Structure formats: structure tokens, C-alpha cells
């Protein structure tokens, strides 16, 4: 509330707040580092899975591209993560405890297994030495990779940031799909033409999942989802959708066009270019999606309505997250158990 009349800060709104200030403290994470970390991590994780698939199905070119991409992305993402720490010199404290309650702790431990595996897989591939170790690393990275891709969804959802928190169901498939598509993009963009076939399938599945989840994120998360309509987020998310669709479509088209067998060299080159462009589009799409999700969350954190309105509605409908308020609030007596808390934002 504000003094009436004179304060322009709080317009007449259907909800009340303290001078329009946010209820929660918005994350202090830098967008480039953290959204970048999530994007790159997703890319690395899915790429490692693709690398194993490629290795197991005898597609060394694709495998190498995937392994390299994974290692590079991991390097970038770890770099971003460390850089974003308030006290980077204490990065090692990430492994001080193991806390299942902390997605970041769980993630750190996963990364502690994944990152060396990804690096060894790439290193052995490049150098050709220790092939058995390389295979083991490739498989190991593949096992952990999908977790690397999706744990970040939990990382975001497990906060009080309304747009992330309310999107806890949508974010994991979104991130999985987006990672899948990005890795597919790597395959399409960097693998020899003859080996990138599976990437098309990955692209199509990934895109389908990502587009579905993305749509649900905005529509099925109640008021919080509207934060994704904030211009700075919506632009990126739209770009992500367009690029995803285009990338997947392009990859599929290239695949279908190229499947005719003996195409002429010009046409082959064009198809190859289309395929690589599609791959690039998918990578870019994945980045746009993550940055868009990040921005949507930030927007929802800065505006108290996203925090207050759903909670107030919950209270007023008698489905509080727990017994809330006290005497003077008739609905308190009817406070339900904890289960209600899960059903937020519907």
C-alpha cells in the first residue's frame, strides 16, 4: 500500500503490495552466465547421449562432433558457472556437501561425474589413445548426459520465482526437448552428411517436445505464465519457437530431399547447406528458449503481482499451502494439508 493520491508508484490494482516492490528478491544471476550455462549444459548432456548413440551405431564422424561439442559446451558452461559465483575462489565448496534437496548440489555431483567423462571421451577420440577408456567415458557421459540436460529445469523450478516455480511440470520436458534439438543441431551442422541421419530424428522429436512444453509453459501455469509474455522474454521465446520449427522442418526436408539417393552435386551441396543451417537454427533456438525462460522468470520475480495474486487466490479459495494467517481470517480454520501446495497456479 502507499499513501493514496500522491504516490505514482502503486497504481490502483486488484492486488495489494508494499509500494509495488517485489516480494521475493529476484535472482542475482547474470543472464549470460546462467542462461548460457543452462543452454550449454543441455547441449553438452544431449550431445553426449548422441555421441554414444553414434559410437554404438558406427558413426564416428557424428560421434566425434558430438563429443567435441559436449566437451566444448561443458567447458563453456563450467566457465560461466564459476564466473557467476560471488566467490569463484570457493568453487570447490560445491562438493563440500551432497544435498538431495539442492538441485545445484545434485547437479554439481552429476557434473563432477559427467564433465571428466565428456572431456575424456573427446580427448581420447581426438588423440585416438586409450580407446577403451574412451568408450567407457563415452558411455558414462551418455548415461549422465540426459540428467545434465534436465536437472537445470529443477534448478529453476525449485525457487520462489513464480514463472519458474509454477512451470515445474513443463520445464523438464522443455529443457529435454530443447537439449535434444540442440544436440541434433550439432549433429546436423557438424557431422558428415552421411552420418547425421539420427540427428534428424532427434531434431523432430526434440522440437515436438519443446514446442508442446513451451506452449504449455505459458498457458498452463496460470498468472505466472503471463510473465513469459513480458516483451523481453516473449521475443526470445517466439524466436526460439520459430527457429525450432524451422530447424526441425529444415532438417526433415533436407533428409527427405537427400533420401532420393543420387542427387546431383549442386543439389547435394544445397541439401547439405540446408541441413547445416537447420542445425545452426536448432542450436540457436535452444539458446533462445533458455534465455527466454530465464527472462520470463526474472520478470515474474520483479513484479509482486506474480507472487501475491496466486497466493491470495489460494488463500481465498481455501486451498492454502498450509495454515496461513490467523484469527480474523475465517478460512484459516479450514486450511488443508500440505498436498494443496502442489496444485499451485492452476
Amino acid at each position, binding site marked *: 500500500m502507499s499513501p493514496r493520491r500522491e504516490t505514482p508508484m502503486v497504481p490502483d490494482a486488484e492486488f495489494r503490495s*508494499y509500494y509495488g516492490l517485489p516480494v521475493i*528478491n529476484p535472482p542475482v544471476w547474470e543472464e549470460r552466465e546462467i542462461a548460457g550455462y543452462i543452454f550449454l549444459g543441455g547441449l553438452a548432456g544431449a550431445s553426449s547421449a548422441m555421441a554414444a548413440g553414434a559410437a554404438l551405431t558406427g558413426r564416428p564422424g557424428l560421434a566425434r562432433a558430438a563429443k567435441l561439442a559436449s566437451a566444448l559446451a561443458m567447458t563453456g558452461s563450467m566457465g560461466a558457472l564459476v564466473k557467476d*559465483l*560471488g566467490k569463484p575462489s570457493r568453487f570447490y565448496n560445491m562438493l563440500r556437501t551432497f544435498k538431495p534437496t539442492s538441485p545445484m548440489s545434485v547437479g554439481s555431483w552429476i557434473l563432477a561425474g559427467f564433465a571428466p567423462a565428456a572431456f575424456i571421451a573427446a580427448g581420447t577420440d581426438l588423440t585416438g589413445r586409450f580407446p577403451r577408456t574412451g568408450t567407457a567415458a563415452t558411455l558414462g557421459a551418455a548415461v549422465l548426459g540426459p540428467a545434465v540436460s534436465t536437472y537445470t529445469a529443477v534448478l529453476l523450478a525449485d525457487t*520462489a520465482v513464480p514463472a519458474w516455480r509454477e512451470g515445474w511440470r513443463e520445464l523438464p*520436458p522443455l529443457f529435454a526437448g530443447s537439449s535434444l534439438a540442440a544436440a541434433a543441431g550439432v549433429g546436423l551442422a557438424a557431422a558428415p552428411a552421411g552420418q547425421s541421419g539420427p540427428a534428424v530424428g532427434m531434431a523432430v522429436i526434440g522440437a515436438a517436445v519443446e514446442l508442446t512444453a513451451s506452449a504449455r509453459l505459458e498457458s498452463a501455469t496460470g498468472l505466472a505464465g503471463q510473465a513469459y509474455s513480458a516483451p523481453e522474454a516473449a521475443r526470445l521465446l517466439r524466436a526460439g519457437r520459430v527457429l525450432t520449427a524451422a530447424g526441425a522442418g529444415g532438417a526433415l526436408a533436407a533428409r527427405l530431399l537427400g533420401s532420393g539417393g543420387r542427387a546431383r552435386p549442386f543439389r547435394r551441396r544445397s541439401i547439405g547447406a540446408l541441413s547445416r543451417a537447420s542445425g545452426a537454427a536448432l542450436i540457436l533456438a535452444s539458446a533462445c528458449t533458455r534465455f527466454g525462460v530465464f527472462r520470463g522468470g526474472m520478470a515474474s520475480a520483479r513484479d509482486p503481482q506474480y507472487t501475491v495474486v496466486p497466493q491470495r487466490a489460494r488463500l481465498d479459495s481455501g486451498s492454502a499451502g498450509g495454515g496461513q494467517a*490467523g484469527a480474523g481470517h475465517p478460512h484459516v480454520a479450514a486450511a488443508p494439508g500440505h498436498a494443496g501446495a502442489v496444485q499451485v497456479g492452476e
Partner: protein
Amino acid sequence: MGFFTDTSICIGCKACEVACKEWNQVPEDGLNFTGMSYDNTQGLGADTWRHVAFIEQPRRLGAQQVDLHHEGDGQFRWLMSSDVCKHCTQAGCLDVCPTGALFRTEFGTVVVQEDVCNGCGYCIPACPFGVIDQRKGDGRAWKCTLCYDRLKADMEPACAKACPTKSIQFGPLEELRTRAAGRVEELHQRGVSEARLYGHDPDDGVGGAGAMFLLLDEPEVYGLPPDPVVSTRQLPDMWRRAAVSALGLAGAVAVAFLGTRR
């Protein structure tokens, strides 16, 4: 142990803010004339562990007789409330801290260990109350420790000790809950029907707070979330969802490879 802040007797003097800063050597955090009544602090953060909110409302407070001759009925009240870390029973910040810098003390309070925190910042959005924050130029997360060091020495927290009207009370939570309930009862009898408790209920979304409040309006008016729920309460579901998605991802890769002709 915890706090009960009875805002009905808060006089907004901000002794709590200063006493806290003096004891904990919290830095001054900027000279800002905000125009938000007498609140130039604005909210809790890394450098503000106690924050006094000031709310001016054209409404009557209980049986208080006020006529400020403005248009309308001239009714007016000035609410003040000293906010602080809630030291939640189910504390989001503590749950998500990857380093163990945040921990639950032997007093049931939640404290950041400044020698452990690596500034990952995860605790900040994990707090449904907007309490903990990152200190600029330092990078680590800081918040009220409920004067952990003082509690060890059997002293009460600096804010509660300083509070001139004992709007801030410190003690065992059970005792405070009883006192708080009695106080609401008393105020209701005196016609202050809008008095209500906040953070007192062990069954609420954060499992009950270590800092409860007697408020005279809806929590959001004071900048408090009306129905905070610790995010980790859904964490198992979230993990399940992520696991399914990860498996899906792996499955998709498998399908893509298996389904693709060479």
C-alpha cells in the same frame, strides 16, 4: 528459538535496524530518499537484516480516534512493522544451498556460514520472503543469523534487546505462539478485529516460521507473501519429472538412432 514481532506496538523507531547493524557489522547500504513514508530502507537484503515497513492508510485502526480532516471520513492509520528472516522450519534457502554454507543451528535457526558460502546465489530466489540477498562487492549471500553468536552466549538477539516497546520479542517458539495468540485475542476484544497472526502455524507452507508476526492488515500490504510455500516441498515431484524427461531424452536418442537407416 525465534521472534514474535507484535506490530501493534511497533513505533517504527528502527532501533532494531541499527542494533542489528551494529552487532553484526552489516554495512550501510545507501542513502535513498524513497518517499515510501518513513521507510528509506525498502526491504530486507544482504545489508538489511531488519527492515521496518511504514504503511499509511486512510482507514480506521480499531477504536482509535483520528480525524485528519481529509476528504472522505478523515480516518487514518499508520502501520509499522519490523520484518526479519523467518527462519523457516522448512527453509528454501537452506535446502537449496549446494555448499552447506546455510545450516540449521542447534537453536533451530537458519544461518549462513560466511566462510563457506561461495556466492552461487541459489538461496536468493529460493526464499519465498525475499530475505536473503547477495552483498555487492562481496558476492556472498547474507541474512539475519538471529544473532547466532549471541544465542551461543545465552544472550538475546540485538534487535529484540534494543526494541524499546518490545514489539520484537524473542523466546522459545511454543511460548511465543501462546503469547501471540493471547495478544490477538486481547486486540480483538479491544475492537482491533483486523489483528491476525502470520508465520505462527506449523502447518503452513514453510512448516511454521521462526519469526512470527502479529499484523494489522493482509501480509502483502507489508510486503510479505500471503501464502508462502517452500519450493522444495515439490522437489520429489520435480525430480521425478526431470528423471522422466531425462529418460525421455535418452529414449528419443535411442529411437532416433535405432529408427534411422544408414
